[in-house]
């Protein structure tokens, strides 16, 4: 977890992103900024992040940054839903090789007040993807 958090703590930015969204966790004040560029199909081609948050939030951001490129909103939303179900209901994570890093968050299940720390970067990314869709297209090279 700490190793992942270290990676998530690194701040990156995109010049002229298709969308840049900042989301706050109202419970603790954590803040995640996600910059995105997408292709014509709305799939992530580049993702940058800045996190002011706890170990969980930074680690989740690192996992997301590792796997989001190539995914669209539906896929990321599905991953978020699986992660949320794992945290809330102990629903096993799917046997999905690409997102196995998410298993590191399983011990968080017993700490309900910290679930949002893990989910925050996913919410920021989905909002950014929504913003890209809302703008009517992408700036894909």
């Amino acid at each position, binding site marked *: 977890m700490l190793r992942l958090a270290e990676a998530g703590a690194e701040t990156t930015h995109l010049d002229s992103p298709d969308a840049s969204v900042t989301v706050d966790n109202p*419970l*603790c004040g954590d803040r995640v900024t996600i910059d995105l560029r997408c292709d014509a199909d709305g799939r992530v081609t580049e993702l940058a992040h800045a996190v002011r948050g706890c170990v969980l939030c930074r680690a989740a951001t690192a996992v997301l940054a590792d796997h989001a490129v190539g995914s669209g909103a539906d896929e990321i939303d599905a991953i978020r839903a699986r992660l949320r179900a794992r945290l809330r209901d102990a629903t096993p994570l799917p046997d999905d090789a690409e997102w196995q890093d998410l298993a590191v968050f399983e011990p968080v299940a017993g700490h309900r007040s910290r679930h949002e720390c893990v989910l925050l970067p996913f919410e920021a990314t989905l909002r950014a993807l929504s913003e890209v869709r809302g703008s009517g297209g992408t700036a894909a090279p």
Partner: protein
Amino acid sequence: MGPDMATNTASEGPASAVGYDPHPVRAQFPLLVAPENDQALHYLDNAATAQVPQAVLDAVTEHETRHRSNVLRSVHRLAEAATDAYEGARATVAEYLNAASADEVVFTSGCTAAVNLVARAFGETLAPGDEIVVSELEHHSNLVPWQMLRARSGIVLRVLPVTAEGGLDLAALPDLLGPRCRLVALTHASNVTGACTDVRAVVAAARRVGARVLLDGAQHVPHGPLDVQALDVDFYCFSGHKVYGPNGIGVLWGRADALAALPPFLGGGEMIRRVTLDETTYADPPRRFEAGTPPIAQAVGLGAALRWFAAQDRAGAATHLARLTRRLLEGLDTLDAGRGRIRIIGAPSLAPRLPIVAFAIDGAHPHDVAQILDGHGVAVRGGHHCAQPLMDRFDVAGTTRASLAPYNTDADVDACLDGLADALGKLL
């Protein structure tokens, strides 16, 4: 027990030297005596919610098992007993606050509801361009309702800054008080820095422009006694759950003339005098502001809590808490070892303050710190403490906060410091 710890430090010493022993007090709190999973519990989150003594639990159980009924409406024996208990609780609150009359005590669902009640009702009396003074030090509960009023009514909010030591910058107050100022709404004591407000100075300044004064007393009331007449404010708000009472009960105290000048907030239930299909006339305070069935058992519990607290050695507890606060502050200083990693948000001394110590650790998120402390059986609060403007003022995302109560012991503070040493090792 008073909050002005500086006045107590001259005679401070070991708890036994002042005759105060926290252990018999602690023994009255079932959750502290027999915590979940039998793991030792070092409860240092009292500024969020204090624990409840057996006397309060007994009073609530007694009411719910022997006198449960609605109040003020029926004439059967249960209803009479419930009404007596409810109004008795109101009298107890009035006595605790040294209010001129129990009719000045309005029961609400909490401190936040009390502030919102004033924002709604007093707000009805304001005109666009009227001004309200708030501060950077406020809990969101004494800030957001006024922002909402601003959005509804076009009033102007003026903001008193905070000093580097985490107290109100009262030197700036006169410049904020113009002829349109109608209300000064400030905290009596900060839930983050623990700083206590110089109420006398605030009231004097407010009166010069004819403004009313509201105090958010959520943090101060558990460190009473209080004397609202001596404070000479107009409105005073607090919660029951921070003063050893149940959740779901709070108080708005208002001076009789101040309450009488307010229109009702919520409609229905006991707040009426006469209702026709065409119009309604309203009851006098306090019932004017208690629409619907009130939180009866919770009020009974609050009354029991205040009676319990008033019977404690509050002066001895104040000295004890000052000593524990110093132990905590000195322990943090030792942990930091001059490296500048631990930053106290507020005064690093026993200047007039409550036994609340909030600190930021450079490179460690307060939630992570609090999680590690939980593993040591230490309950603290990590986060922004519903005071995000104050976090912005000190340029931190959040802090770790330890807040003490008379049942806390040296062992509680030492467990916290041991846990922090572990957290520093793991996170930095």
